[in-house]
Every structure is written in structure tokens, then in C-alpha cells.
């Protein structure tokens, strides 16, 4: 769990690099796309988080198969 940063009113700050920030960016994008596609207004707002969780770092991939040079594009 990341160290909690709080704003003046005591609420957790939503900072880039956290799941909470990514979720809000994702939801805003989905909301805009849905409104454009359907013409319906979306009123839902994500509630403010109580915690702040850093985004997981991707695991190092195991040895990746390399394409043999000259392999046919089948």
C-alpha cells in the first residue's frame, strides 16, 4: 500500500501511478465513448477511494521465443 497522501479536507489524494488514478482515467474514457456511441448521458461517478494502491509493475517475461530468421510468413 502506498503512503497515503491526504488533501486539505482529509480525503486521499488521487495521484498518477496508482490504481485509483488509472481507474478514473479508464472510466472517463469509457463514459465519453459510451455517450458518443449511444447519445445517452452517463451520470455515474466513481466514489472517492479510501486507499491509494500503486499500479503493479509488470513481471519480467520468461525467455521469449525468437522468430527464426527467414521463417516463412505462413
Amino acid at each position: 500500500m502506498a503512503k497515503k497522501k491526504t488533501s486539505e479536507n482529509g480525503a486521499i489524494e488521487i495521484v498518477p501511478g496508482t490504481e485509483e488514478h488509472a481507474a478514473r482515467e479508464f472510466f472517463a474514457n469509457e463514459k465519453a465513448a459510451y455517450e458518443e456511441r449511444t447519445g445517452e448521458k452517463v451520470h455515474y461517478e466513481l466514489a472517492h477511494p479510501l486507499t491509494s494502491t500503486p499500479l503493479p509493475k509488470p513481471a519480467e517475461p520468461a525467455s521469449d521465443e525468437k522468430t527464426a530468421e527467414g521463417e516463412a510468413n505462413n
Partner: protein
Amino acid sequence: MSRIETVQNWISKTIEGTYNTADSTGSNYSQVPSQNPFFVLPKLEKLSDANRIGMNAPTHLCSHYWRPGQYGFADDAETDVPARLFRRSLGGAVTDTVVVAATVWDHTFAILPPQTGAILPSFGMASLLDAASFLLHGCMVDRFKISQKGDQRAQYEADIVQSGKFTNPHGLTALPVLSPPPCMDSFRTKIHYTDSDGSTDVDLGSVGKVIEWSVEHKNNVNTAKRRIGDPIQTVSTSGSGAYVRRLPRGKYETTVGMLIDFLDLTDWTKSVQNLTFTNLKITVVGPLIDATNRHEFEIIVPKFAFESVDPGDDDGDAATQLNIVPLQDPVSLGTITGRIRNNQATLL
């Protein structure tokens, strides 16, 4: 080839701008690869007075609603039509990313969050077998399944539902032929996930123990949203029935399963400990697009656990059935996401 195997079905490459208004340009359609032949005859539901007291049989029939069409496709999974159907089954917005300029693109998408709305992307579907020529409006993907067993290529199954609205004949010109499907070699499939420590990559493919796997997403689309004032469609001069104006998604369900060789108790122990894992990526890999990039059809389970690890049988050998429960992804708020890598700039 039997007569029913001469049927041709197409879906639009575009999404309907207004529900129940299919694209009317033939070149905007792609023929659907399928090994499941069917042809379309819209069905009109009828009501009668047969149940009235004193009646032994109906005196006449009344037209009611056009039954929402339900059609199924199944074939090799690949990065064109099956990928479109997968994307439409999840329903979220697509992010297109250039991998190699003008050559290779990635398309990522997630499940349409129910908090956003319940209307999945809809599209048109044309079907032709002799005189049975129909354009179906307001189609949605109700169920999408992708699976692979042994040395077989990954297979897709897609169930389509639609409002009941149709055009006869389909009225489209220059509907294209079936594109030759690319070779999505079974042996290239990759299956990885990140272990509960958040850093160790578990590569199930590298140890060669995956016997079969499947991912199924059901939208449970409500096809019975019938309301007073629904539009009416007439065949000839008097064959009139109504069709629905909306097909909202129900509560969706995602099922992920895997059968692997039994090696030790590692997975069983993880299951009883309720450990949480991340980024299960099942990548079906196809032919080269350029010198280094291949077509890829990827299903991602961002967060999951093993609901149960059960004893299984693989032709007499011991196997384990991993029943995977997708957990809510804290970012996309859903169960699975998708990524398609291909040679097209967009994937609608």
C-alpha cells in the same frame, strides 16, 4: 459441399450509429468464417384463442413479435472477424496503438462497465442462402468463447442476438468474399501469469503442461424488452409483427478454466491459500505481419484466484483442472480485457 454449406454470412465492420440501423454499404462488411452452417428465416411469434374456455382449437392466428434472432458462429480464432466479435462481446471502448507505422497495430479493450450503461455495440449481419436473403439489424454478441485443446488451433464460438428487425432481400451490393484466414498455429500459444508475490512470471507454456484452456464471456442480453409503441415490420402487405427497440445487457459472467498435467501440489496449495494472482495472459499467436511482429489474439485476466483445483483425467494420465475465478480488476472494473495485434488501423 451440401446445400446448406453454401450459406454466406457477413457482419459489418462498423458499429451502428443508431440502434437497429445496420450499415447499408456492402464493402463495409466482412464474411464470417464459420464451420457451423445455418440460414436465416425470421420467426414471427403468434397468439391465438386456443386457450379460451370452450375452445378445442384456435379459430385464427394473430401476429405478435418478431422473435429476436439467435445465431451461432464457430471456427478458428484469428485477428479479423473473430477478434471483432470478441471486442464487441466485451463492449468497452477500443484504444488503437501504432506498433510499427502503417504496418502493425495493437487494439486494447475492456468490458463495458455496467456503471456506464447496458447497451453493447451493435452491428449489422447479412445472410444469404438462395432466396433467403436477409439483413439483420441491431445485432449484438451475447456469448463469446475461445478455447484450445491439445494440438488443435484455438477455436472461437460467438452467439449473436438481434432485435427482430430485418430487411429482405438484404439489399447490399459488393459483399466481399471470405478472406483466407491466417494460420494461427496451435503450438505458438503463450500462457503466462504473475505469481502472488507480484513479480515472478509463471510461464505455463514453457513447461509444456497445458492440455486445454477456455475463456467464456456471457452477456445475458435481455431480448424481451418489449414495450408499448414498439416499431412494426410488415412482410408483403399483412404479415406484421413488432420488434424491440433495445437489447440491454444483463449481468455478465466470465468463466476461465484450464486442464494441465498433474505435476505436484503447487497449484492446489495456492488454491487452498486463496492466493491472488495478476495478469493471466493467454496469447494465440498467428503469422508474421512484418519481420518481427505476429498476429496476436490475447485474453487478459488482470486479477484472479484459483477457485478450485480438481483431479482430472487426460487419456489415463493424471491431470488437474484449474477453475479460475476472475476477480474485479481495480482499473477496468471488469473481469477480463483483450488485446488484438494485427495489420489493421482500427478494430470496431
